[in-house]
């Protein structure tokens, strides 16, 4: 019996093989990936903004160099991901348009403001920590170009988390005021970081299909749990407190139970009503528009060079 294209595709996935750009794939698989990869790329680009806010005010040259390198990495990660998405047939400018018109989403965490220097530490430690938790399993995603992009991203991301934790550690070993600043940053970033894993499994209708396609390897709640279990001892090492009265170690499982996430806040920010949604989008649009003349000039130059070359050939052959 001849297997249908869908069956052949699913068999390949079940054998844990990779799908490459020119292979046949169901439209819904392609659409899911385009949405996920482009959202991921947008998150990397918008993620530069909260941290860029502190480059000119970093407390030392060492911190400034580290932060600049990190922000530059985020731009690079965005580019790896956009190029992975393009292999699925979506144009770069289409994705930019979707971001700039608010049609496409990006990670809600970047709609929170960076009020103090400690926020840069908390972002590296928690936000990049949560991102790593999400991204490591994506290195085994069934779509080849996405998985390969994630391998590069994960390699670079570990430096991000370490520089963040070092900032936190320095503050926590500093004056009482500095330690209070670190505590305040943890208070503000903890819950939004837990929200980065997305809705509870029961509220996440796409998870099942994404797991059947080997795009996702673990559910939102599984990854969130791992993140909590990893972060609690780290906070203890810093000597600051996670702002959750319900946080408790289950002696039997070795896992922490934790309080209910404020899902109203989560959906408010997703829908565009977070503290910085408008600022972030405006900054992105401005950067894109301000760069337009550079792209146009580079293109005009390239065309002129091309014409010159053709003219020289014409003269020689005349």
């Amino acid at each position, binding site marked *: 019996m001849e297997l249908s294209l869908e069956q052949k595709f699913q068999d390949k996935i079940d054998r844990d093989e990779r799908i*490459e750009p*020119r*292979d*046949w794939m169901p439209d819904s698989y392609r659409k899911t990936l385009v949405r996920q990869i482009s959202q991921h790329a947008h998150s990397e680009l918008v993620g530069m903004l909260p941290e860029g806010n502190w480059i000119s005010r970093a407390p030392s040259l060492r911190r400034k160099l580290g932060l600049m*390198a990190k922000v*530059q*990495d985020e731009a*690079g990660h965005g*580019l*790896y991901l956009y*190029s*992975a998405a*393009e*292999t699925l047939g979506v*144009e*770069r*400018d289409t994705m930019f348009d979707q971001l700039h018109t608010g049609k496409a989403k990006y990670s809600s965490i970047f709609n929170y403001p960076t009020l103090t220097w400690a926020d840069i530490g908390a972002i590296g430690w928690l936000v990049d920590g949560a991102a790593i938790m999400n991204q490591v399993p994506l290195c085994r995603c069934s779509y080849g*170009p996405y998985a*390969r*992009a994630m391998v*590069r991203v994960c390699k*670079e991301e570990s430096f991000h988390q370490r520089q963040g934790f070092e900032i936190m550690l320095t503050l926590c070993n500093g004056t009482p005021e500095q330690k209070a600043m670190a505590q305040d940053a943890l208070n503000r970033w903890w819950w939004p970081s837990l929200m980065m894993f997305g809705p509870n499994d029961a509220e996440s209708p796409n998870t099942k299909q994404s797991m059947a396609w080997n795009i996702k390897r673990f559910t939102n709640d599984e990854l969130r749990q791992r993140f909590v279990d990893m972060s609690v001892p780290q906070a203890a090492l810093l000597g600051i407190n996670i702002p959750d009265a319900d946080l408790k170690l289950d002696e039997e499982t070795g896992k922490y139970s934790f309080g209910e996430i404020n899902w109203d806040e989560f959906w408010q920010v997703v829908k565009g009503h977070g503290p910085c949604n408008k600022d972030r989008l405006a900054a992105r649009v401005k950067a894109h528009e301000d760069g337009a003349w550079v*792209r146009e000039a*580079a*293109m005009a*130059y*390239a065309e002129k*060079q*091309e014409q010159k070359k053709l003219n020289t050939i014409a003269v020689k052959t005349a």
Partner: protein
Amino acid sequence: MNKNLPLYEIFIRSKNGLHHKHVGSLHASDAQNAIMNARDVYTRRQEGISIWVIESKDITASNPEDSDAFYAPAEDKVYRHPTFYDLPDEVKHM
């Protein structure tokens, strides 16, 4: 005018003695700019010592849907492999 700059595929040689290897793609106005952008995007941590760029539209690729038939002729040619030939165990260094 197309708003997208042309797309280039990027190949990097990580060190002398190794092949250039495909690492991804990027947009640039021309090949020279593609090399400069590739330096910034793909070699921020000394990942390479040589970069090749080629416009994506200039690549011709085999069709994955034909791959069964396309590669089938090699399947029954086991005599192209050294293990096809029976030699006694006493023969050394072969």
